[in-house]
């Protein structure tokens, strides 16, 4: 009946007074998926999560949990659990009492509660801590208690509101791996809210990038990074160079994509791919990642569609890469070259102040109109 769709949102709107926090959001989150909502603060991702949890009711639209409309169901009647950013553990209860809370509310028999609490403690490797109070635990341990407290209820969907935000960098990395492993083991749908793109890329099956209450793109980490559909997504995820211009030609196809040429205001012609055809004269932006552009001191490889003479402004050697800023169409342009050959030979190497050739294959760049 629900076709493997755990959460379906159709035209969901949430308005706080004049402000539209969430603006016609459509999403389908599949069963067993690790789904992230990614965006800057205030983009509506937390409000969307709170509507799925039931802490906020949508102003408009429809939310379905396994086919059942839950838009106005109170949180305590939804089979959905939340891991809060602040963990929100009950300070007056022990770890075991915290974990048992949800089961007790559902009037689960005592023996079963004890059994499942122990399993949950096992799962997050906190067996020895059942009788401690939350404040006697470290941040990472509290985090795991919060996870156990939610998962012990076997929710249809687990919601996580920036759960790693309060942890230090090292612990954060560990928890990312642990969280992902846990999700694969229990097979429950995770909906994860974060503003950290690296976190989202590492853990998610799919990501929804949000800005100003709208979903801009939903896709796998690779799709989001390699084929952003708009300038915001390209800019928000990773580093990107943008070159503005107007469409001057469509030069055939490359697989399913159109090869589009842009002419900049300074008269340069740059080429990239577009998933759809764009009318001539349309203002558009070429977007290219620094690692997908190249800089040669000698001539660019023959037959490269995009080759430009340029001067090197800055060179930073960071071990694996050499990161350079060059001049292009009057703007700074980032190029990262992998250090695949010995860099001790400074003569054959990039140096600030030198001239070089900036080039990229057409299929490394994207043409965006939004």
């Amino acid at each position, binding site marked *: 009946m629900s076709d493997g769709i755990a959460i379906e949102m159709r035209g969901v709107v949430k308005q706080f007074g004049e402000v539209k926090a969430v603006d016609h959001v459509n999403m389908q989150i599949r069963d067993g998926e690790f789904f992230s909502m990614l965006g800057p603060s205030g983009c509506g991702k937390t409000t969307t999560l709170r509507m799925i*949890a*039931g*802490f906020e009711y949508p102003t408009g639209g429809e939310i379905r949990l396994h086919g059942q409309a839950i838009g106005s169901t*109170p*949180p*305590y009647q939804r089979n*959905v*659990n*939340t891991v*809060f950013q*602040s963990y*929100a*553990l*009950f*300070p*007056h209860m022990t770890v075991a009492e915290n974990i048992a*809370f*949800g089961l007790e*509310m*559902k009037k689960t028999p005592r023996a079963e509660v004890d059994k499942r609490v122990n399993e949950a403690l096992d799962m997050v490797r906190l067996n020895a801590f059942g009788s401690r109070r939350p*404040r006697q635990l470290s941040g990472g341990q509290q985090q795991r208690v919060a996870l156990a*407290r*939610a998962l012990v*209820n076997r929710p249809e969907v687990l919601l996580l509101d920036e759960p790693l935000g309060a942890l230090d960098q090292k612990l954060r990395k560990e928890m990312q791996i642990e969280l992902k492993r846990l999700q694969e083991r229990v097979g429950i749908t995770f909906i994860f809210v974060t503003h950290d793109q690296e976190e989202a890329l590492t853990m998610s099956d799919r990501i929804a990038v949000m800005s100003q209450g709208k979903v801009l793109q939903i896709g796998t980490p690779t799709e989001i990074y390699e084929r952003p559909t708009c300038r915001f997504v390209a800019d928000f995820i990773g580093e990107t160079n943008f070159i503005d211009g107007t469409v001057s030609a469509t030069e055939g196809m490359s697989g399913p994509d159109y090869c589009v040429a842009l002419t900049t205001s300074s008269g340069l012609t740059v080429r990239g791919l577009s998933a759809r055809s764009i009318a001539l004269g349309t203002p558009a932006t070429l977007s290219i990642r620094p690692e997908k552009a190249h800089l040669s001191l000698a001539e660019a490889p023959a037959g490269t569609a995009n080759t430009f003479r340029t001067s090197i402004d800055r060179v930073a050697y960071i071990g694996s890469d050499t990161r350079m800023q060059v001049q292009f169409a009057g703007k700074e342009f980032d190029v990262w070259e992998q250090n695949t050959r010995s860099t001790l030979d400074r003569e054959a190497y990039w140096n600030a102040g030198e001239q070089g050739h900036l080039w990229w294959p057409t299929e490394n760049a994207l043409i965006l109109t939004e």
Partner: protein
Amino acid sequence: MAVQSVSRSDLERRLERQRRSELLSLLSPGLFWLILFFAVPLVVIVIYSFMTPGSTGRPELPLTLDNYGRLFTEELFVNAYIRSLWIGFATTVFSLLIGYPMALFIILAAPRWRTVLLLLVLIPFWTNFLVRTYAWMIILQNNGLANNIIQFLGFPRQTLLNTTGAVLVGLVYGNLPFMVLPLYASIDRFDFTLMEAANDLGANKWRAFLRVMLPLTMPGVAAGSVLVFIPTVGQFVISDLLGGAKVDLLGNLLQRLFQRSNPPNWPLGSAMALIFMVVLTIGIIIYFRNTTEDDR
């Protein structure tokens, strides 16, 4: 070596002594205050309670246990104790039932309204206490506002003044701010995300309140209850004015024993006050143990 260690411990001892005298000098104003205004009067009362009342009521020798004997056997006194305890208890419970929702309402109000609402709780305090009690007499009298409302609603007029109910109304009214303020402070520190967490785990609002919010705001409940209970039991003005001397509380008896009765009886009054102090102290210790042990 031995000599050295002896001299060192000698030095330590001297330092210790010096530190202690410093501490004493720092504490002395407070200690002086406590001794003069708390310990000395208490000792005087203890001594009085074992003396014999003279013809003017002043304590005289010989020492005796008669005062305590009378308090434990004469019905007048035993009844006053029991009545005081239950009126104090009822006042506390009603103040709590009204005060908790009030405090919660103020916390949940928009921030700019909070100060105004808190002020509204406090403003009655700026009017003289007696005046406010007289106002209640006027409201509750036979042709007062309360009876007018009762009649308007189609019921016969009631005797409201000079009843236990009137005393309770006056006591709850007078003590409500002492309940609301500590509760406000306690609820203000409460993290409302915990309520969301409880809802999320399947607890409806009421169960979330009982299992999470109430236990975590217990320090406020305890403080407010003690602040209401103790003055209630000892006061005599409200029970006098609104109870019309029909509702004798401990405070009323004490006032009479020391001032009004002919002749007064200071030793008996002292014994009465002491017994109540002991009962209250024990009661409050037990109460705090049970309500605040789980405090974060």
